[in-house]
Each structure stands twice: as C-alpha cells, then as structure tokens.
C-alpha cells in the first residue's frame, strides 16, 4: 500500500470510502509526520486529538453509511482562522494565548464536512509578509533545498508559509490559506503545490483575523487542482455574518473539472514580461502557453496597461485598512496587555502595541496611518482607489477577448531566509504578479509548472473572470496534466 501521507485529498476520501484504510490510520500517519517535522516550524499549535476525533467520527460515519464530503481527511488550519477552544494568534505576540470562544465560518464549514484539524499553521504575523519571516513564533523553513550543494534554508513564501510547507512536506494533504496580495499563490509556487484564491466574497471572512478587509480572501492549498476544487467547495458559501459575502450558490467544481480547453481563449498580458526577469521564469511561462495550446486553447496577447501601478496602490490600500483593522489590539479586552506601573491609558496603548506587534506589522500600521492622515489622504488613498478601479477595468477589458489569463505567479523561485529582510521593497516586489488580481477581486490560482535550474519549483498563475473559478481550475488542470510536476522535496528534517 502507498504511504498514507502521500495520498491526495481525493485519494484519501475515495480510499476511506472504499474501506482501503481507516480515517484513524490516516490521521495518525499525518500526526506522526507533524510531530516529526519540528525543524520546519510549520505549526504553532498541534492538535492531533482534534484530527483523531474527527477521524473516529468519519470511521463511524462510514459504518453508518453517512459519509460527508471530507470525511477522513485531516487538514492544516492557518492560524489566522479563529478556532473554538484552540489558541489563535495570527502569529503575533499580541494574540499569544488568545483562545476564541467562536469558530470562523470557513473552519466550521470544513469541520461540518467531516475534516479534522492537525494543527494551527504558522504564517507571517497578521498575514503581513512574503517569506514567513515575520512570525513571532519563528520562521517556517521550506522543505526544499537548492541543488547547489549548499544547505541554505529557503523561504516557504508567505504569508501562508506554514500551509505551503506542511503540504509540500506531507504533513497534511491540504490546508487553508488566506490571500490578500498573493499569500496563497506565492507560497504555493515556492513549494511546488497548488492553491487558489477564489473571487472576493466566495469565502466568508467572519472569524478570520483581518488584515485588509477589501482584499482578504480565504482559499485552499493542496497538492493538486482537484484537491483545491474539493476543498474550495467545502469552504465557500454565502454567510449573512459577512456583509461582503457573495450571495451565490457554490458550484460543484470538482465534478465539472475538465482539462479540455477547446474553444477557450487564454490571454497573455504583455505588461507581465518584466525586463531582466529570471530567464527560467520566462521559459516556464512559454512552456505553459504551449501546454494550454496543446489543451486546445487559443492564445492571444492582451494588455493590462495599469499593471505597473498595482503594487504601489496595493501598498497604500492594504496598509491603510490594516492600520484601522489592527486598532482593536489595544490591551483593553483580550490579548496582550502591557501596563507599566503607574501608567495611564495612553501609556498602556503605546506599551502594549510596541511590545505586541512585530517590525513589519508596525511598518504597515505606520504606512497606513500616514496615507490616511489629513493632507495626505487624497494624494495617496484616493489616488490608490482610482488606480484600483482602473486595474479592475483593465481586467474587464481584457476579458472581452479571453476567458482566462496566464502569467507567472512570482518573479522568482524561493529565496533564502534572510536574503530580503533588510530590504522591504525587494520583498514587496515578490507580489508584483499576484497583486493585480487581488485588487480586482478576481479568482486566481497557482499550479506548479517546472523546476528552475537550481531545482526549485516555479508556479504558473491563472487569473479568471469574477465567479469563474471553474475556468481557472480547468486551465490549472490542463497545465497540471501536461507539466507532469512530480518533484518533491527530499526529507532532511
């Protein structure tokens, strides 16, 4: 029998249903891998008991003939989702020890579908970062190593770096992620897995620690496209508790999966061809174009003329919202409180927030506060919102001549831990291809497409029309079938 931890979500579900193995065996196998992978630091909290109890319920359900869509599947939960009775920190000192008495809508849906939780996954603090180096609980280490004879620790991407690492290292078959400006897609690309950010509003934000409300969107990360479809079906859905939630039925994405792209047109945005980019990235992109043609699609060049303004606009809007969203962490009601002897309210705020937030979080709060302040608001925030509208219009225009857009997910393969921490701008540049779809609220996914010359995975991004996750998944599947990406990180931990 294949090692259980090498199975995909679909294989676990089907194998469990067929009686090839018990859910308890699966849960125990993954929990053992989790326990054995401390060196990766993917988890902030491990919850084998949660996974086990869900597994027992799954086995009972199988006996009773009442199986649910994710019965027997243990998953990882990004520690940005509030989980009832389980510490939820957003990887911050501020929320260290915070145990919610409520369950986020997305995690509740997953438990209702029969999934179990292996633990809470590490991430960039408050989801702010592209390398998982801003976590208060330490860096997540990618399982991948460069094939250069060196032993440099690589970034797993961010902010969903715990999720990407855990899946790539077979610590869980799938995990939740959240994507504000690439936080699902970029770590997926860095670790050779798949991940999809659905249309803004598909997944409820209720119970997810907020970073930038108008951009935050939950989505699944998994080993392949089918697993992403299965997971997303069980995460998405209208939620009256989220005013921005989409009041639309959730399609049966898995059942409708098709890699036959005959009659479809794929757009290639010329503005994404960056001067001086890693030739491996361009080569992968060209290969991807060939694969989609092979799947029957017509390929056309398109223009997204405002692309170069996307990153600056994003780094105004996201910090602006964050500066306000994070105001609630004030030491008054929950989380960290630092009250120096004899201190007043203002001192308590200052001290608590100085101590509770990491450097990157503070940087973004400062940027956000600045761009919203009197005298600067119009020059920054209003201008950025205009850019955002223009970017959405770019996509609308482009989608009159194509159904999906193909581009690289990130401008490079995984970089080494510490390589970019000294230069925030270089770090922010990592999001250059991911951010436009976020600003436009469009569904976008990353699928592994190739290894670069250092043996590190590279991802291709597919961006779809609003609500057309199916088109994105289908094109992703067409690439997955042709790329034949089977590489995996060799175990060194």
């Amino acid at each position, binding site marked *: 029998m294949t090692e259980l931890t090498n199975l995909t979500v679909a294989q676990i579900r089907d194998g469990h249903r067929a009686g090839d193995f018990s859910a308890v065996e699966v849960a125990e196998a993954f929990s053992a891998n989790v326990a054995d992978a401390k060196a990766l630091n993917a988890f902030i909290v491990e919850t084998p008991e949660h996974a086990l109890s869900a597994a027992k319920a799954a086995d009972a359900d199988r006996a009773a003939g009442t199986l649910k869509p994710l019965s027997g599947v243990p998953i990882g939960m990004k520690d940005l989702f509030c989980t009832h009775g389980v510490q939820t920190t957003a990887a911050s000192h501020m929320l260290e020890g915070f145990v919610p008495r409520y369950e986020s809508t997305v995690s509740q849906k997953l438990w209702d579908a029969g999934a179990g939780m292996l633990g809470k996954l590490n991430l960039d603090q408050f989801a702010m970062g592209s390398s998982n180096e801003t976590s208060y609980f330490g860096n997540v280490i990618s399982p991948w190593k460069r094939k250069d004879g060196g032993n440099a620790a690589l970034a797993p991407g961010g902010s969903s770096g715990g999720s990407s690492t855990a899946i790539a290292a077979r610590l869980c078959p799938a995990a939740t992620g959240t994507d504000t400006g690439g936080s699902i897609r970029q770590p997926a690309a860095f670790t050779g897995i798949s991940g999809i950010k659905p249309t803004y509003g598909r997944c409820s934000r209720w119970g997810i620690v907020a970073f930038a409300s108008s951009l935050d969107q939950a989505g699944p990360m998994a080993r392949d496209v089918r697993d992403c479809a299965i997971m997303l079906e069980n995460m998405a859905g209208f939620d009256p508790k989220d005013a921005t939630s989409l009041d639309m039925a959730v399609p049966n994405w898995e059942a409708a999966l098709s890699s036959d792209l005959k009659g479809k047109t794929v757009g290639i945005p010329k503005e994404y061809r960056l001067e001086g980019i890693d030739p491996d990235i361009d080569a992968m992109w060209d290969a991807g174009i060939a694969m989609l043609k092979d799947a029957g699609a017509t390929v056309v060049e398109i223009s997204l003329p405002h692309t170069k303004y996307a990153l600056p606009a994003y780094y105004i809007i996201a910090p602006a919202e964050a500066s306000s969203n994070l105001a609630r962490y004030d030491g008054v009601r929950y989380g960290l409180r630092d009250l120096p002897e004899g201190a007043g309210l203002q001192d308590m705020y200052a001290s608590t927030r100085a101590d509770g937030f990491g450097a990157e979080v503070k940087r973004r709060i400062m940027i956000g506060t600045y761009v*919203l302040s009197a005298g600067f608001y119009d020059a920054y925030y209003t201008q950025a919102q205009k850019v955002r509208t223009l970017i959405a219009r770019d996509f609308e225009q482009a989608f009159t001549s194509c159904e999906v857009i193909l581009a690289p997910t990130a401008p490079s393969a995984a970089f080494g831990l510490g390589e970019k921490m000294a230069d925030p701008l270089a770090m922010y540049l990592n999001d250059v291809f991911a951010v436009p779809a976020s600003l436009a609220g469009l569904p976008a996914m990353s699928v592994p497409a190739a290894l670069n010359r250092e043996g590190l995975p590279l991802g291709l991004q597919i961006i779809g029309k609003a609500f057309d996750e199916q088109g994105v998944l289908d094109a992703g599947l067409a690439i997955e079938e042709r790329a034949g990406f089977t590489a995996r990180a060799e175990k060194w931990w």
Partner: protein
Amino acid sequence: MSDYRIKGETGEWEVVIGLEVHAQITTNAKLFSGAATAFGAEPNTQVSLVDAAMPGMLPVPNRECIRQAVRTGMAIEAQINTWSRFDRKNYFYADLPQGYQISQLYHPLVGEGSITVEADEKAGIPEPKVIGVERIHVEQDAGKLMHDQHPTMSYVDLNRSGVALMEIVSKPDMRSPAEAGAYVRKLRAILRYVGSCDGNMEEGSMRADVNVSVRKPGDEFGTRTETKNVNSVRFVMAVIEGEAKRQVELIESGGTVVQETRLYDPDRGETRSMRSKEDAHDYRYFPDPDLLPLELDDAFLAECRESLPELPDAKRDRYLALGISPYNADVLTAEVEAARWFDTLLDAGAKPVAAANWVTSELFGALNRMGRDLTDSPVSPQQAAELLGLVADGTISGTIAKTVFEKMLESGDGAGAIVERDGLKQTSDTGAIEAEIAKILTANADKVEQYKGGKEALFGFFVGQTMKAMQGKANPQVVNELLKKALG
C-alpha cells in the same frame, strides 16, 4: 427675524447657532450586531462579539436602523440618498473597542431637509421659521467609562457600544436660544411621531452638540465653538446664552474666539474648554472596507414612505382647518401621545373645537392635578367622547359636565350612567324655569330696578341665580331667553 441680541460695549451682537443632534434609533438590536439595546441593563450584558471587537468579527448593517433613519429623513422632507456609504472614524479610546467608529462622513444616508418652528411671540419668534437640516447620517455609539467603581482604575461598560444613532445636523440657521429650543422640541416631536427615536433626553437617547458663534449683524460668520453632549432643551438654551456672552466679552476685551470643543457643566451653568483645534484628533476617515455601499431600492423607499404617520405640521394644519385655535392645535400636536389620544376622541364622534378646548383645559388640568399623563389617563377617549356628546346634544350643560367629569375620574363610570344615576340632565322645562325666575326677580326687586335703570351687567347675576336655583340643570339658552322676556 429674531431680534435676540447680546448687548456688548461695542454695540449689539447677533448669535449664530447650529445643532448636531444625536438621536438613538429605536430598535431592538444594535446597528451592526444582533445585541439588544435596552436602557439600564447590567453593565456588559448587551454586548456581542462584534460590539467587543473580537478578532475576525464583522459588522452587518441592521435593516431596521436604516429604515428608521430613512423614514426620519422623509419626515423632514429631506433628500434620501439611494446610494450611501459607511466610513471609519479612527481614534483610540477605552470605550471604543474597534478603535474606530463606523459613521458616514462622505456619503450620508439623508441629505438636505428642513424643520419649521412655529411662531411664538412671547419667546421672540414673531413668525414661523424654517431651519435647514444639512444631513442625517447613521453611526455607532461608543461604550461608557465608569470612573467611580475603583480607586485607581476605570471600568468599561460596552452595553451602548454599537447602538445605532442618527446624527441630525442643522444648518447655522438659528439666531436665538429660543429658536434653538423650539428646533430641538420640534425635532423631538417629529422623531417621536415617526417612531425612530423615543426622544428621551434624560436617558441619553437624544443629545445635542451646540455650535455657537457671534457677529455684528450683517458681518460674516464668526469663529464657532462646539459644546458637546448637551442633554436637555433647557441646557441647550443655557449653553447658547452663556457661550454667546462669553464670546462677546472675549472679543470686546481684545481676545479672539478659538475653534474648540467645550463641555457644559450643568451644576455651574457654564462651559469649559475640552480641546482646541490644534489638539483635535486626525480621525483618518476612510470608507469601511467591511461594508458594501448601502443601496436602497424603490420598494424599500415606498414602504418607508407609506409607513409614515401624519406628522405634526400636517396634523396642525388639519386641526386649524377644523376650527381649532392655533394655541390648542400647537398644544395638541406637540406630543405624539396627545395627538393620538385626541384623534381617537375625534374618531369617537367628538366635535373638534369643543373637544380641543375640553382636552387642553379640563383633561390636562385634571391629569396635572393627579400627576399623570395621557398614557395613563383614567378616562379613555371613548368615555370622553360620550361626555362631550352629552354637552353637544344639550343633555347636560358645560357646568354640569365638569361635575360629571369629576365623578368619572372618581368612579371610573361612564358619563351617561352618572347623569342618569344622579339626575343631572339639563332641563328646558320653561314652566319650572319661569317659576324660579319669578321668585328671584321678586326677591331682588332693587336689582331689577337698577337693571332697568341701565345697569345691564346685572343680567349675569340673574342668570347665575336662576342656574343656582335650578341646581345647574337648566338649559342656559332657555334661561337667557326667559330672563330677557321677564325683565322686559
């Protein structure tokens, strides 16, 4: 035009007043959460996860709050903005869990409207005056800090956190404390008619920020100060009076008024500076990204409009058209309960003019004596209609009606039953009345002489004597006629 002026050493000063009234919307649930809103509940018992701003919690607009604000806008004939948006007003304070208040700065729900205050000669309002309303927007209330619970710490009560408020912003159209007082009273009446706010200023359901500036008549507006959270009509007027005087004295002594926020101290009857413009917060307003723009459709607007009751101005006009005096019409329409009670009385068949006189004098007099108000009146409109009907059809006189009303108040019995039981029916029996008249004229021959000599005022004396002899039951008109005949 108001001629209210502050007399300074350099001449007369005009006062310019604008009011921002915060009115708590009457609903069972808060603006963005399902938590309850009852007044006076134990601290922190009406707080949801959203109100406490727990991580990951999101606001969802309460439809009823929006509906009430729209109805209020319609009641002052304001422009209703079918597209509006919520903004965040960012500042740190312990009573503000989110670290921002959700309000509407850029695109309020309700645009320009107006409120008319009635003429009131005595108060220096010679003719009705239209006060412009700039806007009405919807926002969250904050919680409450309690400083008296612990020697070194402050406690926080979040029961009010997230409660829905309407902020009703007037134009700087008022020119005297009396106009401002009349505006607040009229606004309160409208809110209570509409049912969007209970107008209870003692419980804090309605409070005003008072903007005051002074200028020489005809000059440009002066620099204004804003006195926050004034919670009675009397205090609003006192703030304006005091603040206008303070500003005049300041300017005339060579100082300048600074734009600042002030607080009113009711015990000392004066305002004091809270913070100046220089220390003002930068609230960093921006559109709340947790909420979509609010779009109102035609069906919603139609329902809002159809559900509006007859409003004070329309009701007053209707009463005037029925012949009711302007004074009575004002009194009867000032409070929604009185108007409702009176309308029920009319529906039960009472004649408008007589009914208005009776309610404003007899009924209100009796309620005053008993320390009650209309909502717990011992006499129902139907019972009152019966009493007034007996007067109207001549069964009893107005004088007897007073006696009957007293008996109704004592016993709770109906007017008809009391009249029947106590034999209070008015008589038009000319024989009986003539007999009594004859006796009275004989007994008062001297007065008859004087009357005939030209002292016609004595007629009233003979009427009184006759009514007394008839124990008040004689029909006054018949008495008049017979007396005139007898006195030749």
